[in-house]
Structures are given as structure tokens and as C-alpha cells.
């Protein structure tokens, strides 16, 4: 329990973060900002894990450890994504997502 902060407030924050991430992912054209949006989505999920763990099963630590794993994976994923973006830039001289539509139709 965190004194003075209700359970739902934290969930509201994480939900807002999640939808900001989704909206960013759908609307931003730059691949780097899209990657940042996915980080927001991941972090909102991390908050949920920690909060539920804290409020429902304070004795256990699974939620915390899941968060650690997600953070580690997010770091790896970011490096892979950036490598991909560099390759895309070499090929198309652009990191606009709308330019990368070779596989259409």
C-alpha cells in the first residue's frame, strides 16, 4: 500500500500512458518516434505489473521480476529496432514509415 494514493489512480495513469503510446504508434510517421511509442506501451504495462503485485499480493515478488525482464527485453528490442531502422535508412534514404511499403498488394 502506498499511503494516500488509491489503486485506481495509478491504473488511470498507466491507461493514459498506454493509449498515448498506441496513438503515437498509429499517427507518428517517423520510425524512431514509433519506437518510442512502443516503449511507452511497454512501460504502462510494467506499471500495471508492479501495481497489481503490490496491492494484491504484497508478500510475493513475481510482478517486480516480470517488470525487470520486460525492461531488459525492451532494451534488447530497442537495439534490434534501431539496427533495422539503420538498414531501412540505407536502403530507402528515409525513416518515414509510409515510404516502407514494398510488400504491399
Amino acid at each position, binding site marked *: 500500500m502506498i499511503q494516500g494514493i488509491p489503486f485506481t489512480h495509478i491504473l488511470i495513469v498507466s491507461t493514459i500512458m498506454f493509449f498515448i503510446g498506441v496513438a503515437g*504508434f*498509429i499517427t507518428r510517421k517517423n520510425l524512431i518516434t*514509433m519506437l518510442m511509442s512502443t516503449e511507452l506501451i511497454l512501460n504502462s504495462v510494467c506499471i500495471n505489473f508492479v501495481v497489481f503485485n503490490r496491492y494484491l499480493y504484497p508478500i510475493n515478488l513475481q510482478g517486480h521480476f516480470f517488470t525487470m525482464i520486460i525492461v531488459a527485453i525492451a532494451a534488447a528490442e530497442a537495439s534490434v529496432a534501431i539496427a533495422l531502422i539503420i538498414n531501412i535508412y540505407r536502403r530507402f534514404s528515409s525513416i518515414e*514509415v509510409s515510404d*516502407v*511499403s*514494398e510488400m*504491399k*498488394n
Partner: protein
Amino acid sequence: MAAFSYTVLIPLVPLFMFLIIGLFGMKFKPLVSGIAGTVGLGFIAILSYITAINYFFGVGKVNEVFQTIIPVNFTWLQFTETLHIDMGVMLDPISVMMLVVVTTVSFMVHIYSLGYMKGEVGFERFYAFLSLFTFSMLGLVIATNIFQMYVFWELVGVSSFLLIGFYYQKPSAVAASKKAFIVTRFADLGFLLGILIVSFYTGTFDFGLLTKTGTSIFQSAGAATFMGCSVLSWGMMLIFMGGAGKSAMFPLHIWLPDAMEGPTPVSALIHAATMVVAGVYLVARMFPVYSIQTPDVLTIISYIGGFTSLFAAVIACTQYDIKRVLAFSTLSQIGYMIMSLGVSGYGGEEGLGYMASMFHLFTHAMFKALLFLGAGSIIHAVHSNSMQDMGGLRKYLPITHITFLIACLTISGVPPLSGFFSKDEILVAAYNKNVILFWVEWAVAGLTAFYMFRLYFNVFWGKDRHYHHTPHESPLVMTLPLMILAVASVFSGFLPFHELVTSDKMGFESHMHYNIAIPSVAVGLLGIIIAFIFYKKETGIPDKISVALGGFYKTVYNKFYIDELYLFVTRKIIFGCISRPIAWFDRHVIDATMNGVAWVTNYASEKVKGIQSGQVQHYAFVFVSGAIVLVLFFVYLLN
């Protein structure tokens, strides 16, 4: 009986040669393949002679009856307890006789082809096919059951097809091979139906059980009738249809004259001496059934044979291609054999026709092979098939001339050559049973002598012609078989067939019938004399006669327009009225349905693929919207 177990080698050696030459022939020099095939054939020819001597003069006869010996037999396909297809070797008088005929003629043709086919493209292929044919024909004659016979029957048809179409770059040869295959295949359909009908009612394929006299296996078939005839008669008639196709009986004879497109040794082997008598052999094999169970069918057979012999003899008088003359002569002689079987009864002297038929089969194989090989020698020298390009060849081809003359005299029935004896027996058999057929055959004997000597005088006498290069006698490998066959043609008439090959496998006494022999020899001599007057020197008589006969001559020359009739029936009626609507239905209904399904799929995917824009954000938007819709659905609507 283990004593004859070596006979299994007789068909297997040619099969082995076929595989060796066929698979590895390209690696040898051509002559090696030819000699290998010939040596293999010589070996089995000797084996056949040993078999024949052992059988006829040794262990074959027990208590005055020739035994049916089955040295090898194994079950090949088992359907039920009683119905199974076997493969094996069966020795009885006719199969042993056929072994001798097939291996002798095949051996002669193998030797002859070493010279005749020398330098041809595909020499080793030719020998491979010859071995295949010999294997199939031997398998056919030693068949222990009707289904084994059918299997080899088809193999013989295939090898005939391959050999007729040997010059596969020549369109006429290709057409002829297709024609032969289709016509005989059509007849074989009847054969198969006949086998199925007969075996359905009797429950067996085995010749031993089918041809046993006094057997009760036909009782169940006796009661069943179809369109006024007993089912058994239909079955036996259909089996004869197969035989008539292979033996080129009217109206299924159209393939044989065209089959002359093949190399001449092939015509000698397949289309004169062995394969075309398979039909005769089939009827002889099933003879007890025909004679005892279905005599009505036998009567029809005799008329078909008689008609074919007359019909073909008349056409032969008008043809100019020497091989075609011989082909029609073959038709005519096979008609004799079939007719002779048709007028025969079963057992003892009644079975004279059966004996005479087999006798004529034997002598005919010898002299007709000789005639064809002689014709091959002539063609080899002149490079033409038409007798209008020939004349005065006796000076250039002395050995061919003498042997050809012997063969012509033999087929004309001049005593004491072999053709006289066998033809005389046939005429006696016909006279005893049916006087009309006797007179027909008597007339055919005269016609035979006439057209053979027409051929002989046109080729070897007549006007001297100028050839581009002087014709020269063929090499010894070609003349040696001619001489051997000439000796066989002269002396095979003295074989005591009436003691060896009879319908009930018991010997009987045969006499000369001077009241028959004298008129038949007389008509033969008359034919020769007329041919002598017409063709010895170039006279205008034949032309005048053909002009006087006008339309009739033209009809005969065009073989009574039977080929055109067939073309009309197949092209106009079958193709035009049946096949074309079916083809239309196939293309416009069946194919169109399938094409429609494919078109609909194609069109739909063409339309749908626009959704795939390649923009990741579109996909993400659709995915998220979908997720939201599902959440709303599950949260609000389901509660």
C-alpha cells in the same frame, strides 16, 4: 514332369536378349547386338527341336494318346480359391508344333536381318524388338490358361506395333502402326469380354479344364441366353473376335496390308508366319469347346474364313506392290486355315479339318516366310516395292529366283510340294462338310496360283528393264535362310501330321483323295498357265481385261473400299456424331465449370489484395480498432 522343365528357357532366353540388347545395345557395335540375338535364337530353336523330338517320338504318347504335359506352372494372381491366373508352360501337340514354327522362322529372320538391315539406323533396336516379339509369341503358344494367352497376346500386339513403326520418321509407317494397334486392340476388347463371360460361367481360365471332353463346367452357362443365343455362344464368338482381329479376318483385315510398311523381315516373321496365325491357334486351342459346346459359332467361323480367303485372293490379283500382294495372299491362306477349323468335327477322321488347318499353318509359315524374305531380297536389289519397276530379274538374282519359284509352286499346290498336301486336306475337309465352301476354296486355289505367278512372271520375266545400277544378288546371310526355307517348303509336306497333331490327340489314317486332289491341282495349273500367257512377255491382255471390267476392276483395286468405309464410320459417324458432342460437353460444361471456379477465386483475390497497403500503421490501426470492438462486445453486450 521334370523331363521337360528346360522348356521354360525357350521364352526366357529371348526375354533376356531383349533386356540385354534393349538396355545395353547402344554400348556395343550394332553387329554384336545382332549376332547376340541370333545366337540366342539359334539356341532356343535347337531346344525347341529337342522338345519336339522328345515329345512326338518319345515320351509324349501314352496309350496312343498324346499327353498334355505341364512342366512348369505357378500361380500369378489369386482371386478366389478356384479362380486364379497362372503362368506356366503347357506342351501338347499344337503348342510343340508352334514352338518349332516360331523358333524356326524367327531364327531365319534373325539371320536374314543381319544382311537386310545392315547399316540401318537403329539396328540394335530392331533386334531388341525382334527378341521381344519372339518372347511374347512363345509365351502365347505355351500358355497354360486363357489369361496368360491374353497377356502375351497383347505383348505380341505391342511388338508388332513397334516393328511396323520401326521407320518412325516415315508418316505412312507411323499411321500403319497405329492402325494395326487400334484395330487389333479393338478386337482384343472382344477377346477380353469373351474370356470374362466364359470364365464367369465356368469359374476357370485353365485350358486343361476348359477343353476336357465330357466336362460339366458348361452346364451353368447352358441355360442362360442373351438375344436368342446362349451366353456361351456369345462368349466364344467374342473370343473368336479377338482371334479374327489378330488373324486379320474380314472385316478386321484392314490393318494387315498397311502393316507392310514395316521392314520386310518383320513382315515375314510377324505378318506372315507367326503372329497372324495366333487367331488360328486360339481357335485350335479352344477347339473342343467350339466343336462340342457351340457348333453354331464354328459354322459362322467357317463362313468368315471362307469369305476372307476369296475376298483377299480377288484383291491380290489387282495389286502392284509386291508386299501387298503377299499380304493379301496371307489373308487368303489364313482364311483357309480358319475355314478348315470351322468345318472340322471333333475326334478321329471327323477332325480332319483341324489336322489340315494345323498342317497348313505349318507349311504356310515356311513358304510364306520364304516368299516374304525373297521379296525382301528383290526389294534390296531394286530399291522399289512396285512390280511395275521390276522385270527380267532372273538373270541378276539366281538364288532368289529359284527359291521364289519354289515358294510360288508350293503355295499354288503343285504336287509333291508341301502346299499341295496341306491344301488338299483342307479341301477334303471342306468337301465332307459343306460343298459350297469347297467350291469357294477350289476357286481360291486357282486364284492363288494366278496371282502368285502374276507376281513371279512380272518380277523375274517380262520385259528387261534398265536399272540405274545393275541389281546384284544378296549376300549369303540373306540367301542362306532362303535356301533353308525352300528345303523346308519342299519337304514339310511329308511330315505325318495326321498321326501327330489331331483334334483328340490320337492319330488317324489319312488317305489321298484323288477325286479332290486332281481338280484342285488342275485349277492351280490353270491359274499358272493363265498367268504365263498374260505376263510371261509383256502383252496387252491384262490391261484390256482390266479396262473391260471397268468399275469392278477399280473397286477391287481399291480393296472394295473397305478402308474408306472404315474411315467414313470412324470419322463421320463416331468422331462427328458421338465424339464431337462429347468433346463439346467436355470443353464447355466440365472444363468451363472448373475454369469458372478458378476465375472467381482469381477475381476475388484481385479485389481483396487492395486491402494490403504495405503501411504498417494501417494494420496497427485496424488491429487496435478490432481489439477495442471485441472488448466492447465482450464487456457490454455479453453481460
